[in-house]
């Protein structure tokens, strides 16, 4: 198996190659310095000369070395019977693809807003939903998405060393801007996660209001945790726990596949469970949507209070007209409002304290803490195996004590961060209580400003809309038997909407 080779120094070919290499080594640095010295008066010329000379040096020396000593290159080790894959150079995408993504997002948002608010076409909204699912979901594999971009932006805000790509910023900002003007049209038919759930919401049941409001808080807490974890470089948990990314990429973690499948199964009966109860970006859009300049209105004209839209909405985002309040109910409402106002600071303080007690479990999410724990177990000899991170650590000059100290510092940081997360949770709960204790007057069926995702399903059922489209000549044709406008199902305070 061994080999003996004749001395290669006597080879003429090798001598020639050696001469080339020697020439390159001897002359190219001289040319380089000459070019650089001539151009010292002009920095840009110096830069060009450096670049040209460097390229020339690399080219010459690289060729010479490769030609001179091919046998001295690393031999391919024999690891196993596994064939060594051929190295390939990935294609450089350049700036076109990101710009195209932003352009498509912008166009999709424009179309969604137009279909929702101007043309009022549920069919077009549905077609756009399918197109968005195919493009942003399966073709672009769910990345970049505005939901995940929240973390990039948060990291860029808190860590100046992190450079967030403009594409990501655009993906984060554009839906927010559109929401401020047109409501949640992004959720309607552009978001691939929403699109996936929109298409399967076929057997929706009504979620009790108390449960709907309670679960809706989870999205805000999730948002707070995601921002803290992103800002501290702990991890991008929104992406890690994306329920549908495994479907978009046609493969993934088994746990996430189960999670995504369950979300889809729940979505058959409970409309858009991820959007309503988990989506952190949706939590931001909910708030902004309350201030949107224009928003979806269910009937194009006078609401006949038929309740069909409320029944049709799978997301519980349509509220009926309010009934007249008795003086006792009004007094009770005021007491609830006062109680909510008083409770809010205590909730913030209480959850702050609770958050500080969660410092250790929160810190354990951070890679530094995980590495310290793994190294500690390895040092104690109880670790079953090493991890890639601990392997890399062992290969670094960093000391174990330094790692432990860093992990302890991180844990102390998370006392404050946990407190902030707790305070945020308390604030959200307190605000929700205040929000619920404020009575709003509605004279007809209205879409909830925060909860409506502008899907346009209610258009299909609204008799007034059908009259507008010429599908029926009178609203009574669209009403089920026994249900009449202004019927016993609702009691209006001051009557129907004025024409």
């Amino acid at each position: 198996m061994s080999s003996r080779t004749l001395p290669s120094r006597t080879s003429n070919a090798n001598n020639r190659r050696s001469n080339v290499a020697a020439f390159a080594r001897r002359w190219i640095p001289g040319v380089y310095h000459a070019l650089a010295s001539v151009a010292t008066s002009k920095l840009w010329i110096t830069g060009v000369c450096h670049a040209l000379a460097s390229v020339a040096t690399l080219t010459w020396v690289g060729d010479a070395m490769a030609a001179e000593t091919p046998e001295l290159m690393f031999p391919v080790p024999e690891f196993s019977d596994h064939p060594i894959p051929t190295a390939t150079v990935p294609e450089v995408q350049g700036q076109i693809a990101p710009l195209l993504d932003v352009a498509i997002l912008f166009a999709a948002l424009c179309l969604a807003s137009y279909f929702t608010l101007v043309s009022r076409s549920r069919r077009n909204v549905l077609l756009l939903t399918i197109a968005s699912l195919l493009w942003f979901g399966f073709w672009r594999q769910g990345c970049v998405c505005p939901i995940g971009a929240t973390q990039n932006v948060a990291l860029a805000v808190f860590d100046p060393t992190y450079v967030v790509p403009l594409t990501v910023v655009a993906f984060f900002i554009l839906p927010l801007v559109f929401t401020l003007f047109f409501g949640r049209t992004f959720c309607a038919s552009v978001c691939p996660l929403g699109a996936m759930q929109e298409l399967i919401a076929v057997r929706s049941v009504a979620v009790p209001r108390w449960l709907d409001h309670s679960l809706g808080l989870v999205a805000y807490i999730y948002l707070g945790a995601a921002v803290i974890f992103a800002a501290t470089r702990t991890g991008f948990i929104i992406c890690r726990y994306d329920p549908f990314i495994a479907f978009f990429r046609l493969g993934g973690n088994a746990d996430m596949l189960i999670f995504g499948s369950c979300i889809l199964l729940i979505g058959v009966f409970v409309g858009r469970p991820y959007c309503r109860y988990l989506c952190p970006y949706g939590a931001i859009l909910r708030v902004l949507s309350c201030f949107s300049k224009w928003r979806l209105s269910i009937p194009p004209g006078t609401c006949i209070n038929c309740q069909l839209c409320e029944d049709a909405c799978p997301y519980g985002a349509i509220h009926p007209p309010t009934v007249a309040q008795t003086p006792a109910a009004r007094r009770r409402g005021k007491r609830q409002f006062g109680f909510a106002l008083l409770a809010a600071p205590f909730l913030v303080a209480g959850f702050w304290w609770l958050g500080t007690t969660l410092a250790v479990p929160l810190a354990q999410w951070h890679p530094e803490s995980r590495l310290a724990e793994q190294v500690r177990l390895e040092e104690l000899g109880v670790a079953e195996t090493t991890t890639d991170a601990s392997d890399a650590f062992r290969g670094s000059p960093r000391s174990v004590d330094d790692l432990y100290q860093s992990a302890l510092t991180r844990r102390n940081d998370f006392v404050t961060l946990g407190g902030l997360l707790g305070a945020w949770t308390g604030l959200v709960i307190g605000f929700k209580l205040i929000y619920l204790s404020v009575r709003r007057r509605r004279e007809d069926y209205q879409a909830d400003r925060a909860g409506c995702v502008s899907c346009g399903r209610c258009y299909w059922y609204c008799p007034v809309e059908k009259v507008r489209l010429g599908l029926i000549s009178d609203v009574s044709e669209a009403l089920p038997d026994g249900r009449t406008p202004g019927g016993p199902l609702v009691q209006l305070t001051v009557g129907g909407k004025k024409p």
Partner: protein
Amino acid sequence: MELLVHYRGTLITAVLAVAVGLASYAVVSSDPLAGHRDRSFTMDFSRVYDVDPALIQYEQTREFSVSMAQPRGISVGPEDQIYVAGDQTVGVYRPDGTTLAMIPTEGRPSCLAVGNDQHVAPGHIYVGSGNRIEVFDDDGSRVATWNVPTDDAILASIAVADESVFVADAGNRLVWRFDPSGELLGTIGNAEAGGRTFNVPSTTFDIAIGPGRQLHVANPGALRIETYTFDGALQARWGNPGVAIENFFGCCNPSQFAVLPEGEIVTSEKGVPRIKVYSEYGEFRSVVAGPRQLGIAQSELGDPRPHQAGVVFDVAADSQGRVWVLDPRRKSVRVFVRLDEHTGGIGFQPVNLESTGWKPIPLSAPLAHASRRHGSWEEQPDA
């Protein structure tokens, strides 16, 4: 069907409850931020761990402690005395393990060599540390300190010929040649001078002198050994990369080697530690010790933790053909003897070493302080 319709609400609630439960379980059990070891690229070392017993033709006959925290290099000098460099000292030992002297050094030694009887100054000790070579007389007194003419040197090995001292520099990937007075005579593998270069990915870069006035140089990145004249002319090269026992495995091997009296070469590999014997021309002959014989557990192969990743078994050979292995983990010197010499042939039971009076020195044995007078070391009582 009516039953389904009747209990529709209950069924939906049950489905939702199961789905929520499953989803919650999936989220809790999933730990996507956890650090894992990527098993898809984990190497299976079972093939290389056990060596065919028929190929192992050496056996460890004794072992003695060197009382150093970090032993780094071993060499055999005149009268087969053993020299071990480590910490900030050079230990001199008799073949039976008796400590003869502990010579303090200025730097932390990384390698050493001792002039043999053909050297112009037999018994001179050359110790490499940092970018300098400390030279000691055979009585342990400092003779000189040579500086390698560069600051980024990593001295990995020293080889002493009759009138030349070669120093392998892993930092500059070349071999320096000095005369016995410390004057630089030239270099081998200097990229700036053209010609051949050495592929040295790590700090292991060993050299040794062959019986025919040749300089053997490990080209670790190329996984082979090359033979040069003292002037730097390549005479031969051999060695193949591969997992098979006759090949050199890993990123940079052989990490250490020594030359037996008949010119055979004893190689030591790191990563998957194994010590083997080749002919002068690279023909595989036998195995001195595999990972198991060297005390490495199979689970430790590929383990980057310092106690395993840093283990490099330096080897030396004496005039009787014994292989001296420096074990940095056990901080000891282990002696391997050919089975046919030791037992009268392969397959014979080894003799009872204890009955011959060979006893390993306990690790806690006190050091002996010694001085060398008139060509022989004399033991001295503890100071």
